[in-house]
């Protein structure tokens, strides 16, 4: 298991806590919470725990692409069990949809 931490610029905070997905084979769960007291409101802090080591760059690119389009500030936790980039993006979009913020479609 590898733990990766990222920070991306963001413009508005998620309105409330959101939970999506399951730590199942080829899948992941996402927990999102609004920025707490003292947290930056202009960025998304992302922690990824993944069962597959060595994909730092791929994670960075997938997340950057997402946060460029949907700049939701807050604390993001991704618990991953070998999801492909496609599944990761799908789950991120589901979280954004639950936050009422599915920005421009690609």
């Amino acid at each position, binding site marked *: *298991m590898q733990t990766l931490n990222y920070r991306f610029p963001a413009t508005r905070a998620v309105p409330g*806590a959101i*939970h999506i997905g*399951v*730590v*199942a*084979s080829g*899948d992941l*769960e996402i*927990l999102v*919470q609004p920025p707490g007291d003292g947290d930056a409101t202009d960025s998304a802090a992302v922690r990824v*725990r*993944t*069962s597959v080591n060595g994909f730092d760059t791929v994670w960075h690119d997938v997340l950057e692409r997402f946060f460029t389009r949907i700049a939701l500030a807050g604390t993001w*936790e991704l*618990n*991953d*069990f070998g999801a492909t980039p496609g599944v990761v993006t799908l789950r991120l979009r589901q979280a954004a949809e639950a936050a009422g913020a599915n920005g421009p479609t690609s």
Partner: protein
Amino acid sequence: MLTRRSFIELDALGRATALLDPGSVRVLAGPFDRLESPWLAPQGITPQADDGTVIARGTADGRPVVIAAIEQGFQGGGTGEVSGAKISQALLLAAAESRAGAPTAAVILFETGGVRLQEANLGLNAVAEICSAILDLRPLAPVIGIVAGTVGSFGGMSIAAGLCTRLIVTPQARIGLNGPAVIEQEGGVGEFDSSDHALIWAVDGGEQRCATALADDLIPDDADLLRTALIDAVHGGVTEAGQHRSQRLDVLASRLATLDPSDPPSPDDLRRLWGPHYTPVPEPPTAGATKVDHPKTRGRSWLRALGGDATLEQVIPSVLVATTKTARYLAVVPDPDNRFYRAREGQVGLTESLAVAQAVHDLIEADKDEDVKRAIIAVVDLPSQAYGRIEEMGGLHQAMAATVDAYHRARNAGHPIVAFVVGTALSGGFLTHGLQANQILALDDPHVEIHAMHEAAAARITLRTVDELNELAKTILPMSYRVEDWAKLGFCDGLLSVENADSPTQADVDKVFTAIVDATERARRGPLDLSNRLGSEAAVATRRASRAVRELLARQWNPE
């Protein structure tokens, strides 16, 4: 067909939501409470924030219900310390609520491969606590099990399924003690071909379990129909004492008498032989008990030594008892001529489960008018449960449920139960014969091994080498095979060193006898349930997560 809402395709929260009245669902100890397993990340395994078990309170047709839904996608639904504690605590809180005048039914959605081997001994104990909690609640409010699939219910949790007031299944469901792959691994492909799906469902499948009365309702994979069946079961209320499947030793005995392992019935034959009702079947004439030349094993040696002047009686050749004025000693021992050939080395199989249950039951009956109930000492030296196709076809999980039920009944009737581990105490065997005790003692000896699965098998299943497993066990306490590590988990009430563990000396016997008497006294003074396993000094240090789960669920039980 197109309007049917599949239940199986839902995740655990979706399943719980589909069963409860719309808008009534309240999740307790959810993902944002972050009660994840403390044991997985150190092993390089990604944890899940709610440890893969959803606890939800709500109503079903207006009646209060608590659901424990196991998420099959996470670690195959395996029972770990946290997920197990969530289920047992939900059951205990439902029992407290019911006692306080608001009967609260519990629903368990069983989708599990059994004990999570990465948390081995803590998972095994969690299953024992769940079984005990089901039995605590069952007289007060119905406990309804649902096995929908696709994982099904396997391992010790199937014993829990066997204790439920009512068991609802789909045709996709499977229920068994040992899964097909484990049986093939232990007994060879001739014993069980785990690639033969038709065979698997013929033995373990929901239709077969219903047709042989090992489950109650066969419902298609349809969320609305399952909800209707659940509401029906909730309205059905509790079952009369003595009438639960796990209490009907008469039915179990008559059914097992019809099973001939040398000429086993096909699964279809079994339906005709046993029928869809859990009532006694005609028994064929049986040959009288034969004199058995028992191999000398630790279990037998200690049973003989502790029994003193009492004669060793055989309930069946593989289950021996010695009864004194103050206690009944019980052991499962090897019987090289056992007609169930998968249980010849001292494994707990179908007939062993029944015999132990019967011996415990008989003592409860014999002492029912006594103020001071005799102690029951489970001398434990068993390699495991019996891994076999015939065992699964006959419902080993249900036979074991009868034993667990009997031990629980004895404990609650005031019989102190002391487990004394002198050799190996593995897996479902130990769940059946030992883990329902008030007090657990073990010999401090390198050949004493307490675990969820033997080393080689655990390594194969978790895709590790035995060396890797041993390396991990040095830091992950519940995975260790060393008894001194097991003793730190919180449920050891005494680790006893002796001069000769194989053939005890008189001094050894005296020492152990004193320890058993002390344990018996502690049991008489202590709680009737298993709560001392959480309150011990070792538990405070090691079972922090279990304790946190208990506290949080109790706090969140009622809305703020």
